[in-house]
């Protein structure tokens, strides 16, 4: 191996791709850069990698300062916890529970939460010939591939789950506990696709904004136990979430 002191020698290929990235971005000190350039002069793999990096400029997402700064804005605190306390206090003092936004549902043990953001939305799309197109609402079956788009004017994060006809909950976004960050005020196509399994329907997809996954999970399960898919839809409406019901073939 060539002497590349100052540039980390690596196993396998002579130099790490990170070193080459640093070379491509002028991130290496001049002496190290010169040594690395000399060392890779006859290395076609390194040259190909550097060419690939240069070509990657065209594929990189365009600079959008607002989108980046939007992620840095102080994270909105979920409102479910204080509202839960408010609901409890209201129920204790005035005997009211259902009139208060976010109050506990008298018919279920669903946690009382209230998602942030006016008129948030969830829409599904379906893969047809390898492309996602808006779903027309027709019943779907095992193997059908879905995409999801969410819109929330104010919210900073989304939790997306579904509950099928067996009452099994699947968590697609927010599985780590915290809502998946999204950009407020514009449709956000959630990455990846969902492949329906053979579970019985209907399957209700629910997007909740700025609320941790755990109370959402408990709320959906509790609502489903009380009244199946229609109760889940009602629960979603009550907490300011968006739901879409997919009937199964």
């Amino acid at each position, binding site marked *: 191996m060539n002497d590349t002191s100052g540039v980390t020698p690596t196993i396998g290929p002579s130099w790490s*791709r990170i070193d080459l990235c640093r070379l491509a971005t002028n991130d290496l000190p001049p002496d190290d850069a010169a040594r690395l350039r000399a060392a890779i002069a006859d290395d076609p793999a390194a040259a190909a990698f550097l060419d690939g990096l240069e070509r990657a400029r065209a594929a990189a997402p365009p*600079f959008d300062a607002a989108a980046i*700064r939007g992620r840095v804005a102080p994270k909105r605190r979920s409102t479910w916890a204080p509202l839960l306390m408010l609901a409890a206090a209201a129920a204790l003092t005035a005997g009211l529970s259902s009139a208060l936004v976010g109050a506990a549902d008298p018919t279920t043990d669903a946690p009382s939460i209230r998602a942030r953001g006016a008129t948030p939305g969830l829409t599904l799309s379906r893969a047809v010939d390898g492309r996602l197109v808006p779903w027309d609402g027709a019943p779907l079956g095992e193997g059908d591939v879905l995409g999801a788009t969410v819109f929330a004017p104010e919210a900073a994060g989304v939790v997306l789950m579904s509950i099928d006809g067996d009452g099994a909950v*699947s*968590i*697609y976004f927010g599985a780590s506990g915290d809502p998946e960050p999204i950009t407020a005020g514009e449709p956000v196509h959630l*990455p990846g696709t969902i492949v329906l399994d053979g579970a019985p329907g209907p399957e209700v997809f629910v997007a909740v904004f700025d609320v941790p996954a755990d109370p959402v999970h408990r709320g959906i399960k509790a609502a489903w136990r009380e009244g199946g898919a229609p109760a889940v839809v009602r629960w979603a409406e009550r907490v300011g979430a968006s739901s879409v019901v997919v009937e199964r073939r």
Partner: protein
Amino acid sequence: MVARSTPFLVWGARVSNGWRKLPMTDAELGDLYARYAHVLHHRCRAILRNDEDARDAVHETFARVLRNHEAFRAEASPLTWMIRISTNHCLNVLRDRGLRAGKLDRHGPEILGYDATVPQPDGVLLDWRTIAPLLEDADDQTRATVLYTFVDGCSREQTARLVGLSVPTVRKRVRTFVERARKALGLTAPSLEEVG
């Protein structure tokens, strides 16, 4: 008042006049983006095999730059710092995907939706495609160690610096992973010389 003509003049500089406490302007951020975004995107796409996820990873990395601009400006190698951040993000995304009840398919480029098309990244993918499934139940540091070692081709020393482990620990984790991977792939166990 210190001029802010370019952010690159102060990388690693130990300034005490408060310069580093100034928030990062859009112009500075734009300069950084022009210099580094394509490299980060290329690498994240290779790891995640999904263009949207890769774009998200790039934006999230630059958001972290904004949040930590003081520490970032003091970095001797801004790119290495951003690679470390984006790597952690990508590994979290992969872990999150694995938790989605097996329903979230890893279609990769053919189904990204809304007329997106993605050229196949070069080289790196084949390795990572094989390696990634073997790491699903590994801890974060082991996943990062394997990624830096086998996908980026980093030395044990470089990997140790990036992951924040000692070199002997990196060696041990790499050996353990290789033994496990060979077993899973039905290959014979490697010698210590092979693994390093």
